[in-house]
């Protein structure tokens, strides 16, 4: 097996991967969710002749053009980093997880081709044909997410190969793709993408309404994405709960880390909040039998604790526990916000009158991104110290070349600049009158 040049290099490689993945995942979510919203708005505009829908579709298409372009390249960085940072993983298991990535490649191809057509051919196709070219983008975006998350699910539930003296043989790529963790992880991720997109876009228009722009354009811009996200939120909570129950049987070390549960047994409590200090959870609100009830629907249900996991194989508890708590808390907060709108709509067919509602909506976008990142930390850090669960340690997969920390520094600089630039460009797009999506500086700038 191989080892990093120094422990600092391993930490640097992990930090670099975490940063570039955590950054890309936000753009990827918009890539999955935003085409559907944009195409729907364009179609509504065509059907009803409502100019506001047309304006929104154009505005979202322009933002999508920026987000997709940056997402395409930040996703490419990840496929480089798979080899640059984790050649041990790729050398041994690259062939096992290659198939979902190959399929993802084709989904991404279709997405890029039709996005090019959708964004640049507004004046080259009839309106109805143009709407139709958006549909492959929507389908391919979800398909990309499916394949990529299937590969990640495989890292949690590796299947479809035999190991003989440390060498991979008899690979069954379709079994690897359809591993047991795949269905729930994929659904959880795709729903998360629609929540991030929906709450994210809605928050922009909520902020606009707080500044006094209460026209129909802003109302639709808030309501359409918000309703999509609000419908998804309760489903997401059920799916998340199912995924946690899946962990109880299939990846108990991760659930034990999530709950900070030391001892295996029945009548296990659930800890809300708190920190894992001195070997146990402190300062938490403990609900007796709570975890046993959630996992097995009865107080006597046995839940595995960390005592069944050798100390060297335990994930770090606090990051996993805290990020899971943050994700669940935000999820229920967003559910409450959705219920508020539903109630108001049921009573008076209108948005809630309170300014607080707009304030919460304006924050919901950032909150859903925080929940997304927290969920990602839960599943990734919760798998540690393994990169392939129970098969390969992260420390054995890292590139043994020295100087990986330099890559981390460079990535930090690059992503900081990119974050500033993308925020600046999107903010300018928001405040400018809406032009046709295919037009850019070459039409607007006068030399």
């Amino acid at each position, binding site marked *: 097996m191989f080892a990093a040049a120094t422990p600092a290099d391993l930490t640097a490689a992990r930090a670099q991967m975490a940063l570039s993945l955590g950054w890309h995942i936000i753009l990827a979510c918009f890539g999955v969710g935003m085409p559907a919203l944009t195409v729907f708005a364009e179609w509504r505009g065509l059907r009803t002749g409502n100019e506001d829908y047309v304006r929104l579709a154009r505005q979202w298409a322009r933002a999508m053009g920026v987000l997709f372009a940056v997402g395409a*390249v930040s996703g490419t960085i990840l496929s480089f980093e798979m080899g640059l940072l984790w050649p041990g993983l790729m050398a041994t298991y690259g*062939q096992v997880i*290659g*198939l979902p990535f*190959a399929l993802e*490649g084709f989904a991404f191809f279709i997405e890029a081709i039709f996005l090019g057509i959708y964004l640049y051919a507004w004046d080259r196709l009839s309106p109805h044909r143009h709407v139709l070219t958006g549909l492959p983008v929507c389908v391919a975006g979800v398909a990309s997410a499916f394949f990529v998350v299937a590969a990640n699910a495989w890292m949690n539930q590796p299947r479809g190969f035999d190991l003989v003296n440390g060498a991979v043989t008899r690979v069954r790529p379709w079994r690897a793709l359809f591993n047991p963790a795949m269905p729930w992880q994929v659904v959880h991720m795709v729903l998360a993408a629609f929540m991030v997109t929906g709450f994210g876009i809605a928050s922009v228009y909520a902020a606009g309404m707080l500044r006094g722009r209460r026209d129909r354009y802003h109302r639709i811009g808030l309501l359409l994405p918000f309703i999509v996200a609000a419908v998804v939120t309760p489903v997401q909570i059920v799916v998340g709960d199912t995924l946690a129950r899946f962990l109880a049987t299939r990846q108990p070390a991760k659930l034990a880390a999530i709950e900070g549960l030391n001892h295996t047994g029945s009548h296990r409590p659930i800890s809300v909040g708190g920190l894992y200090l001195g070997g146990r959870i402190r300062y938490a609100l403990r609900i007796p039998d709570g975890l046993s009830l959630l996992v097995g629907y009865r107080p006597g249900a046995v839940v595995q604790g960390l005592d069944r996991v050798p100390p060297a194989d335990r994930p770090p508890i606090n990051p996993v526990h805290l990020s899971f708590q943050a994700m669940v808390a935000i999820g229920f907060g967003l559910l409450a916000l959705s219920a508020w709108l539903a109630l108001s709509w049921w009573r008076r067919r209108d948005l809630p009158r309170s300014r607080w509602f707009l304030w919460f909506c304006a924050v919901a976008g950032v909150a859903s991104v925080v929940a997304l990142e927290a969920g990602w930390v839960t599943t990734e850090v919760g798998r540690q110290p393994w990169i392939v669960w129970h098969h390969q340690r992260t420390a054995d997969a890292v590139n043994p070349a020295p100087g990986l920390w330099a890559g981390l520094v460079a990535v930090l600089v690059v992503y900081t600049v990119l974050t500033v630039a993308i925020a600046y460009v999107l903010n300018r797009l928001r405040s400018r009158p809406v032009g046709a999506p295919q037009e850019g500086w070459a039409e607007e700038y006068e030399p």
Partner: protein
Amino acid sequence: MTSAQWLLVLTWVGVTLYALLGGADFGGGFWDMLAGGARRGFAQRRLIEHSIGPVWEANHVWLIFVLVMFWTCFPRVFASVASTLYIPLTLIAFGIIARGAAFAFRKASTELWQLRLFGGAFALSSILTPFFLGTVAGGVASGRVPPGLARGDLLTSWWNPTSVLAGLVAVGSTAYLAAVYLTGDARRGGDTGLAEAFRHRALVTAVVTGAIVLGGIVVLRDDAPRLYAGLTGRALPLVAVSGFAGIVSLVLLLLRHYTTARLAAGLAVAAVLWGWAAAQYPLLLPPDVTVTRAAADPPVLHATLASVVVGMVLLVPSLLWLFALFQRTPKR
């Protein structure tokens, strides 16, 4: 042919398409860099913007296709190359992100300082990225990447005569392809002056790149004798095709037959890539890692081959429609 050989051919088709399509997009950045001041270069930059805007993302996916094919079908080769050539590959990754992001940001900009900032980042990264891609190719072709994780020299594996030569040839080829393509695009757009300007550039670039290639023969003989023997032996017909197609493309440019000049220029670049492949086959990592030794488990190869064939059925018509749509002048 075995599945591994078929997959290698398909991957190399991907490399070729990336060079011809994605390469030309990089070349667009090269000419963007040299277009001159904001006022003088406006028309050229606008043409470049319109030519690559709708297609560069799709063209870029060929690179992802190639990476994924390599790690799925030849995982140990991928891991060896990635770990040893860590430095240029990291720089390529940064170049790719800077190029794509800056191009998208520039499209959404209107003020001069933004156009300069994002345009400059786009242009600079468009020149550096193909250079480093070339150094990676040179490192592999000259046998400087041994099998195993980071077993090669982290610096001289890509900073050596063959790599630098390959990097320069890559930059020259992308600039040449872009100039030839842009000449045709400019004429279709009805701007004869612009077409003449790019035609002139294409001619100059062809001569310069040709000179680098000729001088490179000496470099390869000393620095990479095995590659040199392959190129002058088994791969000689392809090398000859490349040279001949290059000259034909020059003649066609002089005669202002821009569509056929495109095909000839593309053939010249493609023949270099296939010449390299023919010279090196069946070795993936010279001197001793062969296709058969490096190939993944047969079920993986079969599943990937089937997926690629099915994927192509979806991909090829979509891609052709994309190109057809934007090679027509829009109805106003």
